[in-house]
């Protein structure tokens, strides 16, 4: 083509072309962000990312399941026997060694995530050999401190961030 042969191919290092390309690339990247960020949790979801639980009405020995960030959290009012069992375990016996004191703020209240660390099922309370929790999916057993003792799960039940606002009120998250 005559036009093509009489024109030198644009010099790629030409500053103008480089600048235009760079500014264009910045624009595309900036435009992409809203389209990525829109999939993140929205304001209404974030507003529910912490909850306040009234624990005053939970009798000793009971487990109450509350919904937090779309999943279950167990609030367990432990009996003296359960506390004693949890505290007297040797760390060497544990797959994921943690003392009971590391897992609770007040010994009578155990607050753990209700998601089995194996594959995400919800374990059943007061069941299994250790009378903590038993996961019906693959038989993982947790003790009264929510620590994994037997079965395929690798880790203890997670302890969410929480704070006692008063003797009867806990803020989770």
């Amino acid at each position, binding site marked *: 083509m005559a*036009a093509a042969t*009489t*024109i*030198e191919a*644009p010099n790629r290092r*030409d500053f*103008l*072309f480089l*600048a*235009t390309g760079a*500014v*264009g690339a910045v*624009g595309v990247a*900036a435009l992409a962000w809203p389209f990525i960020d829109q999939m993140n949790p929205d*304001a*209404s979801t974030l*507003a*529910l990312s912490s909850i*306040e639980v009234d624990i005053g009405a939970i009798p000793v020995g009971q487990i109450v399941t509350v919904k937090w960030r779309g999943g279950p959290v167990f609030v367990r009012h432990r009996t003296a026997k359960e506390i004693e069992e949890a505290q007297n375990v040797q760390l060497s016996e544990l797959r994921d060694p943690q003392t009971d004191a590391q897992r609770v703020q007040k010994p009578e209240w155990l607050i753990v995530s209700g998601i089995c660390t194996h594959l995400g099922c919800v374990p059943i309370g007061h069941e299994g050999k250790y009378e903590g929790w038993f996961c019906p999916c693959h038989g993982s057993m947790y003790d009264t401190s929510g620590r994994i003792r037997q079965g395929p799960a690798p880790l203890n039940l997670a302890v969410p961030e929480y704070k006692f606002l008063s003797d009867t009120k806990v803020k989770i998250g």
Partner: protein
Amino acid sequence: MIRFKTKALASAALAFAFAGGVALAQETAEQPKPPRETWSFGGMTGGFDKAQLQRGFQVYKEVCSSCHPMTIPFRTLSQPGGPEFTEDQVKALAASYQVTSPEPNEKGEIFKRPGTPADNFPRPDGYPNDQAAAATFGKAPPDMNLLAKARKYERGFPWFVFDALPGLQYQEMGADYIHAILNGYTHPDDLQWNLYYPGHKIAMPQPISDGAVEYKDGTPKTLDNYSKDIAAFLSWVAEPNLNERRRMGLGVMIFMFVLAGLLYFTKKRVWEKAH
């Protein structure tokens, strides 16, 4: 010949259009347009005035809220670009309302509990739905969550063209409408006659007058101030992201002018040898 006919046709069409415009103007002579006020959130760089929104919220809470629902979450009152109450203020405010829990309690009962910032403002007491409100007022008071965007008035040619142009743009019609309605009760013997309401017969009797709300910041307690503050507040309620939108828009505009300029010169460079 052809040219003559075309011109005749065009001028005939123009004459008809003009006649129509005049007829329309005469029809609407008794229906004045809401006066255009100056708003802090108008123009290209304008944004909401925090203090004005806080006063506007006070007017909503003490006056409007007894009849009008406003379905927005309490938490938005503390978000940037709004009245920006503190989170503790919003928490206390939310707790002062009783809201119906979306999920039943362990006994399966629907129950009421103090609100949290994540909850929506509950509907006015006594009017659990629009039907109940309509039964009382004859017409359900509209939800105020989008009111400022849901109200406009005809500007007519050529104003509607100018309203789109940079520097002249006019997006605050809703605020002007609300402000005008609140100032439009000009027949003292008929509390449901409004100068600016289309057809003048309005279901809402005059809701507010001088001195009705006790402002804490020393702003004069006049109807004009109340109606400006509530109009500004409702504009924010309808468009809570306006400040962010304007800020982002200015950045995008500057960027696009730079990019378009660069592309123009690149285009010239590429084409200079082709001609």
